[in-house]
């Protein structure tokens, strides 16, 4: 009996395992899951002037719409594919971010406010959204009220959403493409009165062309019923093509066109190439992918995804690396590690804990490796130095600060280097997030920047100069705090020497970088110096650092004012780095930004108040000591 029970138990366990295996194997044969859709991540598409993996494009769009990288447990890639292949699945997902309550009032959305809205919730009020947006678009951007700007943005977002939802609508059935003439239906090999898709009709465009050639355009009123039906169908085709052409996403690459543009939306490609479009590997690949998804055919879907992923393009040689870069998000982990390191190093300074000190140092090393790897991946992805945007300069400067901090720590072993590396690195990685344009950290490069040698030498050097000044600034803070805390003279002198040294490093590299920039400007624009705001920004740093270094060397100022000057140098660097880009004038238009004024004012105020308070306290302490 006992034996039987045991046997029964074994049998049950085996059955359950077998059952699970069977179910999972059956599922893997038929149903398409999220994991399968993510296999499309490497497919290259074209957006914002560059070839990029579908994954990057999807992330960008989802962030633009909702401010998030995933939604309802779906990755951006899954969300986008569902939206393109079967929009009704996504219409009920809360995607549209509306943060301004005035917008809700203006467009007449009732109920408690939410952060995000479904398409089906907004669709009933689309007429109101459109009328406000149309009125707003007639105004100058500076005259727009906040809610008008937001409604206009919402309207544009909805237009883009509709465009994405209609990307594959060439394969949706429409009544316009039903044939009501039996002889035409027979000639086209279609069922009479049945709705067909644009794709079905365009496949038979040679037959329609034959009919059209026989039609006399001057006698359109007296056409036979078959010819009239041909004209109606062809008109419908032209009408829909006019509406749908040139709308993103650009999925198909072709060198057939005479223009310099080689990327087309599926609609454009079908409209321009007719039945020939289906002979194109890329176009037919996307059709196969869409059909496999609609028919829930996993094998066909994976096959189509693989075929499309294998197609390589000049501008995106390594889409897999970019997908991996997006997924792993090394910069984010580096930022977290640096944040933890700041806490650990501060606790090590205040509690003299050796463990905390070692841990924080270790975390900074790991973070430096992660940042370095991320930067290296950016070089592999873009095939150029990763220094062409504000975002890229911020992450580069953050890495340089971490590396210099580590070297300083190895040489001095007094926790100052770890503090510089972790605090500086964390701060600038944090700020870099503000300069991610539309969720895509990779961008195209303007013609004037398209010079590997100058881009590398000038921007790398000037970024190291910025890093030197910022490190001097951080050390300046440390010196002033130490001064107020009445730290021993030896420690004060060490910090003071470091402040002065990094001021020299900052000055040396900023001068070299500016000179290299001048030489580049001479090559590109015909003059070494042109008083452009960005050039003036670099000059500000040079003048400021020269002033401090000369004043110190001539004994006009002492260590306290040198440190205060180094702290104020942070303001100068931020003015040169971000401030002049806010002005929106000059030849460095590729760096213009509208974000960062608040940060600039905040940093400046903080530093001024910090200098004021610490210098006053230091003066009081000195007076007490003199008494």
């Amino acid at each position: 009996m006992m034996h039987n029970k045991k046997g029964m138990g074994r049998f049950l366990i085996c059955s359950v395992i077998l059952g699970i295996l069977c179910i999972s194997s059956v599922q893997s044969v038929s149903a398409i899951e999220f994991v399968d859709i993510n296999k499309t991540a490497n497919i290259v598409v074209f957006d914002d002037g560059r070839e990029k993996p579908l994954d990057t494009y999807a992330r960008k769009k989802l962030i633009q719409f909702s401010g998030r990288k995933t939604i309802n447990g779906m990755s951006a890639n899954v969300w986008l594919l569902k939206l393109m292949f079967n929009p009704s699945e996504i219409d009920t997902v809360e995607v549209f971010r509306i943060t301004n309550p005035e917008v809700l009032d203006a467009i007449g959305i009732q109920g408690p406010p939410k952060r995000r809205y479904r398409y089906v919730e907004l669709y009933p009020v689309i007429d109101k959204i459109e009328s406000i947006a149309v009125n707003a678009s007639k105004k100058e951007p500076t005259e727009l009220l906040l809610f008008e700007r937001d409604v206009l943005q919402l309207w544009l977002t909805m237009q883009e959403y509709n465009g994405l939802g209609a990307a594959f609508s060439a394969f949706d059935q429409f009544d316009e493409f039903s044939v009501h003439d039996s002889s035409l239906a027979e000639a086209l090999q279609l069922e009479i009165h049945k709705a067909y898709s644009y794709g079905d009709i365009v496949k038979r465009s040679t037959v329609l062309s034959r009919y059209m050639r026989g039609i006399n355009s001057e006698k359109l009123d007296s056409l036979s019923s078959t010819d009239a039906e041909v004209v109606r169908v062809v008109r419908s085709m032209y009408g829909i093509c006019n509406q749908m052409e040139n709308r993103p996403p650009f999925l198909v690459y072709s060198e057939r066109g005479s223009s310099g543009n080689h990327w087309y939306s599926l609609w454009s490609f079908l409209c321009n190439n007719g039945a020939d479009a289906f002979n194109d590997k890329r176009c037919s690949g996307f059709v196969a992918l869409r059909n496999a998804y609609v028919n829930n055919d996993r094998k066909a879907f994976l096959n189509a995804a693989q075929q499309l992923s294998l197609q390589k393009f000049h501008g995106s040689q390594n889409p897999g690396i970019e997908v991996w870069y997006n997924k792993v998000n090394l910069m984010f982990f580096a930022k977290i590690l640096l944040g933890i390191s700041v806490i650990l190093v501060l606790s090590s300074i205040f509690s003299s804990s050796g463990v905390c000190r070692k841990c924080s140092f270790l975390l900074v090393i790991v973070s430096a490796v992660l940042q370095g790897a991320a930067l290296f991946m950016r070089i592999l992805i873009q095939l150029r130095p990763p220094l062409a945007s504000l975002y890229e300069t911020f992450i580069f400067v953050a890495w340089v600060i971490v590396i210099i901090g580590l070297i300083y720590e190895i040489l001095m072993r007094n926790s100052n280097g770890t503090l510089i590396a972790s605090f500086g690195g964390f701060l600038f990685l944090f700020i870099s997030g503000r300069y991610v344009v539309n969720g895509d950290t990779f961008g195209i490069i303007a013609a004037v920047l398209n010079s590997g040698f100058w881009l590398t030498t000038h921007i790398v050097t000037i970024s190291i100069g910025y890093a030197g000044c910022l490190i001097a600034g951080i050390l300046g803070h440390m010196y002033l705090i130490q001064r107020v805390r009445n730290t021993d003279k030896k420690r004060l002198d060490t910090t003071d020497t470091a402040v002065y040294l990094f001021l020299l490093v900052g000055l040396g590299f900023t001068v070299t970088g500016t000179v290299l920039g001048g030489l580049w400007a001479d090559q590109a624009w015909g003059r070494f110096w042109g008083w452009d705001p960005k050039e003036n920004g670099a000059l500000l740093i040079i003048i400021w650092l020269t002033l401090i270094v000369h004043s110190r060397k001539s004994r006009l100022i002492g260590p306290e004012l040198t440190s205060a000057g180094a702290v104020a140098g942070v303001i100068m660097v931020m003015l040169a780095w971000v401030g002049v880009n806010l002005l929106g004038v000059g030849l460095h238009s590729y760096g213009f930004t509208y974000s960062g004024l608040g940060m600039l004012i905040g940093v400046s105020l903080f530093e001024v108040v910090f200098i004021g308070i610490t210098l006053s306290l230091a003066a009081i302490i000195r007076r007490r000591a003199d008494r």
Partner: protein
Amino acid sequence: MWVSLMIPQSFRHLCDRSTMFVKNAIVLRKSLSIAASPKLTAYCLIVMLCIVISGTVYETSHGLLAAREHFFESWFSLALGVIPFPGIKLIAFVLLINLLFQALRFLKFPLKNSGLIIIHCGVLMLLAGALLASKMAHDYILPLGIGETSNTVMNFGDDELVIHSANGHDAADTFTDTVIPVEKLRNGKSVIVGDITLIIDTIHKFKNGTNNDNARNSLEIVMSYSAICQSASGNQLIVNSMAPAQKILCNDRTILVEVRPVTKNLPVSFTLKDFTKQLHQGTQTLKHVESQVVISGDNFKRDAVITMNKPLRYKNYTFYQSSYSEHQGKTYASFSVVYNPYKITPYIASLTIISGGLLHAILMIIAGKRKRRIICDAQ
């Protein structure tokens, strides 16, 4: 008083002269001390900082040309429109003197200071070069349509008053009589063209109201002339830099008066054979521009390609791809033409500064190591 009576007259003269000499020597010494003062360097740098900040802010509202005129290429500027304030040129000049005197007074010349000396020589060279270039270098624009040939370039930063005349009432076949740079025009100045005299009444300068960096400021000159001639506005003529030339009919003579950007004929002529531009698809960002040109002089003719970052050089002229425009279906390329005989100065100065910096860094490292070794030995 009695003492002075006792001293002979000649001796008193000698005393006075020696006192004067001592006084002068003290003044000279004080002046030299001020000229070589590190404080002067600091003050100059602070003032320079203020000018750069003010000029940059001014640039956003008034454009680059106006900012250059008022702050960056002037000896004096007016702070808040009324308070006289030094311009960059003056500060650069004072810094130049200050650096020279400081070098003579303070710099010792042992090996350890050689890097610093080279750096400061480089800075001196840069400042001197900038001052020379501001006087001698000129920027021009050469706009060309595809297939067009020209050797005429314009400087939109400066204007000139030009008077053309023609015999008879046909203004089509004119020849240039007089060209006067606008900065040399003064109220009351008279210009004689044939038998008529034009007298300048007033010159108005209008700031452009846009943020466009290179937009010209409008200039208007009101002139009166002898009453025997006729024009649309009696015996007065209003010439505006933004308007076409004004016409006067006088004694069977046509006179055209205009204010135009300073125009110059180059020693070589340029033909634009072809121009291609490429944008990044779906954006307005320029990917590539290329102009195929033919440059021809007295005894030569050669093809050349000008692209972004790859200018064409001819003697002291350099031709850069500046911009392009499309007008009535025709493409025009604009070339920036820079004449700078001191072009090489910033290159040499930069090289000097960087090599000085490197030398100084190396010497500092060696000195630091030596110092550490001495400390170690002592311990």
